[in-house]
């Protein structure tokens, strides 16, 4: 009788926790949704009240200054010091309060965010130099490289990571991006992106898994963890799969090292290779979206290439369609698939863990919901304006400030990538795992090129 009672209790224990409402204020995905949508509604309400100067002031950045001398730059900051102070407080309150609710210590966040904000301002200023383009001083690259130098030459205290929240900033930026993304484009381009992402996700994951297990004899959970990391969205996907296959701590360390290493290489290589090949911005964005592993790293590469060729919008749009709408949706699916394989094939029922289709939603990157919501709401709002009114009133007073706010979140993100990447913290990986993942990367890049440039090239080139 005891055993029957125990089994009932076991079944009870195996049920998922009550998640529901708490996730809405404890997960950064949801906060990115709330912040992004709130900023969009704020901009629209101010526009309707005839007070758009407020949001335009908060969205100020020196990226487009084109200064020629340090004196000119100093004069600019002297004239706008008050606006930058307001802007700093604006970001500090938004990100400080929300991360505090999620459990980050405010006493650590505030000083670290001051450092991040000032650093981001310097990155914008460098990118705003009149000759910056000649030296490839694109803001994402400058932020990444200077961040890497600071993090690895000087020992910043680990608590400063409290404000270097790479994922939170990029997710907020993606929701803001949705506000400038016509829903018609999502609906027309989405299916192509999903088809391409499905091919890439399946092929890359299976290549890494089978090369790892059959050719190099890797443990199956390790092959699964790095396979999904390479095929979907890097360490986040590896983390999602880790619980499904009971991966060891070392497996995730391996994934972190491989993903971070290759993602950084891709940020530096893909934009320059795309330029050498003369790819249109939309095509390069799709290729980067197919070949990069993490959203943040991919946005850095796509933004860099967009700035290089003077068409940032197209590169970011096609990247977003490919990576965020196409590949990221696969996380939950792989999680369930590998839970099933681990339970019914590897362990033959010994683990007691059963795959649960609800994982697809639990592990769904919720900021994508915000991206769609922002796109739909802004498309509905702008549909009430004719083209001349849109270009003379809505674009400069609503869209442009939102683009600038998004650019700020992206710079926070790119600088945070550099500042959190301390090579001494990364674990050394075995050569078998290294070659397994590297073969997957090669397949990913080549197949991504074929799909983005040859198969769907005309389509991606049409993205503006």
């Amino acid at each position, binding site marked *: *009788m005891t*055993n029957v009672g*125990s*089994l009932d*209790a*076991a079944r009870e*224990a*195996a049920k*998922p*926790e009550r*998640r529901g409402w708490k*996730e809405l204020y404890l*997960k*950064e995905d*949801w906060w990115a949704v709330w912040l992004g949508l709130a900023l969009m509604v704020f901009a629209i309400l101010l526009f309707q009240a005839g007070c758009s100067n407020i949001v335009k002031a908060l969205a100020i950045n020196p990226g487009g200054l084109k200064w020629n001398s340090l004196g000119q730059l100093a004069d600019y900051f002297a004239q706008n010091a008050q606006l930058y102070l307001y802007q700093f407080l604006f970001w500090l309150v938004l990100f400080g309060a929300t991360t505090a609710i999620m*459990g980050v210590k405010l006493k650590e966040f505030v000083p670290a965010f001051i450092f991040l904000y000032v650093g981001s301002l310097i990155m914008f200023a460098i990118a705003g130099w009149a000759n910056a383009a000649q030296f490839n001083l694109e803001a994402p690259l400058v932020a990444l490289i200077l961040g890497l130098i600071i993090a690895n030459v000087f020992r910043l205290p*680990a608590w400063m*990571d409290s404000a*270097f*929240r*790479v*994922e*939170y900033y990029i*997710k907020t930026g993606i929701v803001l991006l949705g506000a400038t993304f016509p829903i018609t484009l999502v609906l027309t381009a989405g299916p192509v992106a999903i088809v391409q992402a499905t091919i890439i996700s399946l092929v890359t994951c299976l290549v890494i898994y089978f090369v790892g297990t059959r050719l190099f004899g890797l443990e199956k959970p390790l092959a699964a963890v790095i396979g999904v990391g390479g095929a979907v*969205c*890097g*360490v*986040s996907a590896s*983390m*999602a799969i*880790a*619980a499904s296959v*009971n*991966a*060891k*701590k*070392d497996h*995730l360390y391996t994934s*972190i090292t491989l993903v*971070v290493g290759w*993602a950084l290489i891709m940020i530096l290589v893909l934009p320059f290779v795309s330029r050498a090949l003369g790819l249109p911005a939309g095509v390069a964005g799709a290729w980067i979206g197919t070949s990069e592993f*993490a959203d*943040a*790293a991919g946005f850095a590469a796509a933004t860099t290439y967009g700035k290089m060729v003077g068409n940032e919008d197209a590169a970011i749009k096609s990247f977003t369609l490919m990576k965020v709408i196409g590949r990221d949706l696969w*996380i939950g699916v792989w999680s369930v698939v590998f839970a099933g394989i681990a339970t019914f094939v590897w362990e033959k*029922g*010994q*683990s*007691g*863990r059963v795959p649960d289709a609800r*994982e697809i939603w*639990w*592990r769904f*990157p*919720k*900021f994508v919901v915000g991206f769609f919501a922002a796109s739909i709401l802004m498309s509905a709002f702008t549909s009430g304006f004719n083209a001349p009114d849109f270009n003379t009133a809505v674009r400069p007073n609503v869209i442009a400030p939102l683009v600038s706010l998004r650019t700020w979140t992206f710079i926070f993100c790119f600088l945070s*990538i550099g500042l*959190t990447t*301390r090579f001494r*913290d990364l674990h050394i990986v075995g050569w078998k795992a290294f070659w397994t993942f590297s073969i997957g990367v090669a397949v990913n890049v080549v197949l991504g090129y074929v799909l983005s440039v040859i198969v769907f090239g005309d389509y991606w080139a049409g993205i503006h």
Partner: protein
Amino acid sequence: MLKQQAKAKSQFNLIPFRFSAAASGVTRCAACRFFTGAPAALERAIPGLNILSSAFGSVRADTGLCERHGVFTTARGAFCPQFEDGGG
């Protein structure tokens, strides 16, 4: 009833675990002292996790680290003979 008990015993042998003295009589990894599930603690426990990812994201869901076995599992995992109540 006997058949049900026999079936239960069979499954119990395959999945050994014990229950804590918690009022509910139910154990979860979330309640175990070896389980790290809080996002900030998880990021401290896994250096590099926050570079291109985050423990605060939806994708992680309730995945955490079992320090006893050095493996990742979900907070709702329950089948563990080494469960020790963490008072949570």
